[in-house]
C-alpha cells in the first residue's frame, strides 16, 4: 500500500521538476595574479565562489551581473572551455569536463552552442561566411550527419542563413568586414544553429549593437528559441534584455549567486539588497528630472 501510494507523488515530482538540461553545482574558479612582492605568495582572484544553476529543456535563464561579477568565467565553464577548480557542470546528467581534449566534448557541443558578444571579433576576418557557418558542422560531424556529405552541409548552411534572415546566395562568399554589426551577429547566430543544438549560450549578444538593431536581433533570438524549442542561457548586464528573453534570472555578484528565481518575481520584488540597487540604477524612460539621491564615493 505504501508503495503504491508513493508512486504518484514521485511521478508528479518528476513532472514538476524534470531532469535539468544543463546544471552546475558548486562551481569555483580562482586565478593566480602576478606576484607583487618578492617574499610573499602570489595574490589570487576568486572569480567564482560556488555557483549553482539549472536550465530546463526549452527553458531560458538570464545571468545578470556587473563587471567583475564572474560572468565571463561562468560562461567559459558552462561551455566546457575551462576547468573548474571545484564543482561540476552536467549536461543531461553527464559531466562536461572542460579543459581536456576538444574531441571528448563533441557530444556536448553538438547540443550546446555559443553566441559571443562581439560580432566582429568573433568572426575570423580571413574566412568567408560559408566557412564560418560550416565550422561546427565540419568539427562536429558524426555518423548521422557525415552521410549527408558536402551537399548536405551546403544545404544546412543555406538553411540557417535563411533562418537568421540573410540572403544565403548573396552572403555565402562574403567576408565578415563587409557586414554591419547586426548582420554579423546574425551570422554568429547562424553558426550556432548549424549543428541543430538544444541549448544556446549567449554572451551579451546585443550590447555592441545600436538600439534599433538590438530589437531585431533580440526578436530573432526569441523567435528562434521559441520555434525550435531551444533552451537559452543569456548573460547580460542589461536587465531590459533579460526581462525580454528570460523566464528565470540569476543575479551574480563577486562570484556568488546573489539571487535566483523566476524573472518576474526577481525583477518585480527582489529579495536581495544588491538586486534592488541594480534595479534602481537602470535609467528609466519616464521623463522626469533626476531624482537620484547623491551617492557616496563607493567606486
Amino acid at each position: 500500500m505504501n508503495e503504491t501510494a508513493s508512486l504518484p507523488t514521485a511521478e508528479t515530482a518528476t513532472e514538476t521538476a524534470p531532469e535539468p538540461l544543463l546544471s552546475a553545482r558548486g562551481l569555483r574558479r580562482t586565478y593566480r595574479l602576478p606576484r607583487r612582492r618578492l617574499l610573499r605568495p602570489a595574490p589570487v582572484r576568486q572569480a567564482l565562489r560556488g555557483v549553482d544553476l539549472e536550465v530546463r529543456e526549452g527553458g531560458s535563464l538570464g545571468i545578470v551581473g556587473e563587471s567583475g561579477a564572474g560572468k565571463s568565467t561562468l560562461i567559459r565553464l558552462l561551455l566546457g572551455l575551462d576547468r573548474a577548480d571545484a564543482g561540476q557542470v552536467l549536461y543531461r546528467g553527464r559531466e562536461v569536463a572542460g579543459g581536456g581534449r576538444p574531441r571528448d566534448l563533441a557530444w556536448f557541443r553538438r547540443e550546446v552552442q555559443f553566441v559571443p558578444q562581439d560580432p566582429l571579433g568573433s568572426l575570423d576576418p580571413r574566412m568567408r561566411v560559408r566557412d564560418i557557418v560550416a565550422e561546427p558542422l565540419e568539427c562536429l560531424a558524426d555518423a548521422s550527419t557525415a552521410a549527408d556529405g558536402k551537399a548536405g552541409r551546403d544545404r544546412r548552411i543555406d538553411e540557417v542563413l535563411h533562418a537568421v534572415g540573410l540572403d544565403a546566395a548573396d552572403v555565402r562568399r562574403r567576408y565578415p568586414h563587409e557586414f554591419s554589426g547586426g548582420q554579423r551577429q546574425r551570422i554568429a547566430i547562424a553558426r550556432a544553429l548549424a549543428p541543430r543544438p538544444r541549448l544556446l549560450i549567449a554572451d551579451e549578444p546585443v550590447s555592441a549593437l545600436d538600439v534599433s538593431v538590438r530589437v531585431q536581433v533580440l526578436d530573432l533570438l526569441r523567435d528562434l528559441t521559441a520555434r525550435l524549442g531551444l533552451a537559452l542561457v543569456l548573460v547580460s548586464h542589461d536587465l531590459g534584455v533579460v526581462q525580454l528573453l528570460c523566464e528565470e534570472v540569476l543575479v551574480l555578484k563577486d562570484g556568488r549567486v546573489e539571487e535566483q528565481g523566476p524573472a518576474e518575481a526577481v525583477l518585480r520584488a527582489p529579495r536581495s539588497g544588491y538586486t534592488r540597487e541594480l534595479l534602481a540604477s537602470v535609467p528609466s524612460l519616464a521623463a522626469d528630472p533626476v531624482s537620484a539621491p547623491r551617492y557616496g564615493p563607493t567606486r
Partner: protein
Amino acid sequence: MSGILRALLRHRSGLLGLVLVSVLVAAAAVSWVWTPYDPTTTDLKARWVLPFRDGHVLGTDMLGRDQLSLLLVGARETLAVALLATAIAAAVGLLMAGAAALAPRWISASVVQLVDVVIAFPALLTAMVLAAVFGGSLWTAASAVGIASGVHVARVTRLEIERVRGTDYVLAATASGSGTWRTMRRHVLPNIAPTLIVQLSLVMAVATLTEASLSYLGYGSPSPAVSWGRMLHDQQPYIEARPLLVVWPGIAVALTVLGFNLLGDALRDATDPRLRGSGVGSAAPGGVPESAAEGLPKHGSAAAVPVAAVAAPASAPLLTVTDLTIRVGARILVDGVSLSLAAGERLGLIGESGSGKSLTSLAVPGLLPEGLTASGSIRIDGVELLGRPERQLAGIRGERVAMVFQEPLTALDPLWRIGRQIAEPLRLHRGLTRRQADEEALRLARRVGLPDPEHIVRAWPHQLSGGQRQRVGIAIALACRPALLIADEPTTALDATVQREILALLDELTREQGTALIFVTHDLAVVASVADRIAVMRRGRIVEHGPLGEVLASPREAYTRSLLAAARATSFTPSPASPSAVPPIPPSAPSAEPFEPSLATEATT
C-alpha cells in the same frame, strides 16, 4: 590567389617590389645561359674600360672583367643565400614558435629562454665564426643568417600565435568543437601569415646585406664564385681612380633589399581580405558609415529643423552652431546642423552609430579627427570658432568649453599621475604653480567623490576602477569652471550602478557651477535623466528637436518614434511588459543595417 596577385599589382610600391625581385630572379636565371662576357676571364688589354664602350655596358675593372656579367652572375649568389637563409629561418622559426606555443609548459619556457639567448648572437658574427672553423661558403653564410633570423622569427611568431589564440574567433571556434590542430591550421596560420610574410621578407633583406658584408670582409664563398660584396672589396683600393666601379654592385644590393622589403609589405596587405577588393582606401574613418550622406534630402526639406526652432528662448545664447557641415573628402558626414544653447541649459544629443552626433560635439571645441573639415559657423559668446588657429582654440578648450569622453581609461595619459592630470587645465589656463596646482587637484578629487583623495592623486590611471576614472575625467573637465561641458557618451562604458552615480555627479556639479551641458548618447533612457531639451540626429542631420518631455511623449518624426519604440522594447521596466506587448518597429524605421542596403532584411518569421 589571383585576387592576391591583382591586389599586389594595384599596390604601387608592391608593384615596384615585384618588379625589383623579378629582375633579380631573371638576372640569376639568365646568367646560367648567357652573359655578355665570361665574368671570370681576365683581359688585361681591356682594363678600366668606361661604360658603354667596346660592348661593356657597365665598363670593366682593373682585371678587365665585364661588370655587367659580374653583376648578373653575382645575383645567383645573393639569391641562393637569401632563399637558403629564409628556408632555414622559416623552419627554425616555425618549429620554435610552435614548440613555445603548444608544447608543455616547461618545454615552452625553455624554448623561449633559448630564443632570448640565441638572439644575442648577431648573424654576421656567427657567420664569421663559422667561416673561421669551416672556411667561408654559401652554406656558412646562409645557415648563420638563417639561424640568427630564425630566432627573431620565432619570437615574433610566438607572440602572434598567442595574440590570435586570444581572439574571440578562436574562442568561438573552440566552442564550435574545433580541435587544437584544426584551429591552428584554419585560424591561427592564416592570421599569422601576414606577419610571417613580412618577417621572411626581412630575412631575405638581411641575408642580402649580410652576404655582401661577409664577401667584402673576405668570408663569403671562395674565389671562383662571384658576389656583389666581393666586387666592392676588389674595387675599394682603386676607388680613387675609378669611383664609378663601386657604384654598380652597391646599387644592385640596395635595389634587391628594397625589392624584398616592398614586396613583403605589399604581400601582407594583399593577403588581407579587409584591404583587398573594392574596399581599399574607402574605409570610413572612425567607423563612420559610408551611407551617412547618401540619399539625404536637400536643405529646407521637412526633415531639417529650422534654426529658429532650435534656438533657446530669451537671453543671448552661449553656443550657436549654424549650418555645421563636416566632410571627409567629398563625403558629407554631418549635414547642415544648427543648434544653440543658453548658459546653464542642458541639451541631449541623441543618435545611433554613424548619426554624426559625436562629430558634431567634437567640432565645437575644434577636436575633429585629422582629415575631416568643418564648414558653417560655431560661435561661443558670439565669437566665431571655425577657422581659428589651433593656438586660439586651445585657449578656449578646458577654459570655456570642456569635454568628458566615453572611455575613461584610454582618455587618461597612462604615464601621468592622477593629480597632475586633474591640474593640467589649471596649470595651462590659470598659470598655477605646481604647488597650488597640487592643492587644487586634491580639492577637486575630493569634490568629485574620489575615495582617499590624498592617496589617489598620487596614483596612476590603471590603478583606478572605471567609475573612479570617469570621476577623474569630470574633475579635469570642470577644473576651470567652464561655461559649457560636452559629455560624449560618458557612461556608456560603465556598469549600471556606477552609471547612476556618475550621472548624479554630473548633474549636481553642472547645476552647482551653472555649466551648460551637451550630453551625447545613444541611450534615450540616460538622456531622459539629464537633459532639458533633446535633439535627435540621424545620418548627419538633426531630425527632431524640442523639450524633453514633449519629444518623449509625442514625437513628430517617424524615426524618433521608432527609436523610442526600440528603446522601450529593450529597456527595463519594473513591472514587466509581456513580450507580445512590444510595439512593432514601423516600416519606416531606419534600416538597421545602414552599411549594405542590399543585404538588409527584416527580422525573420
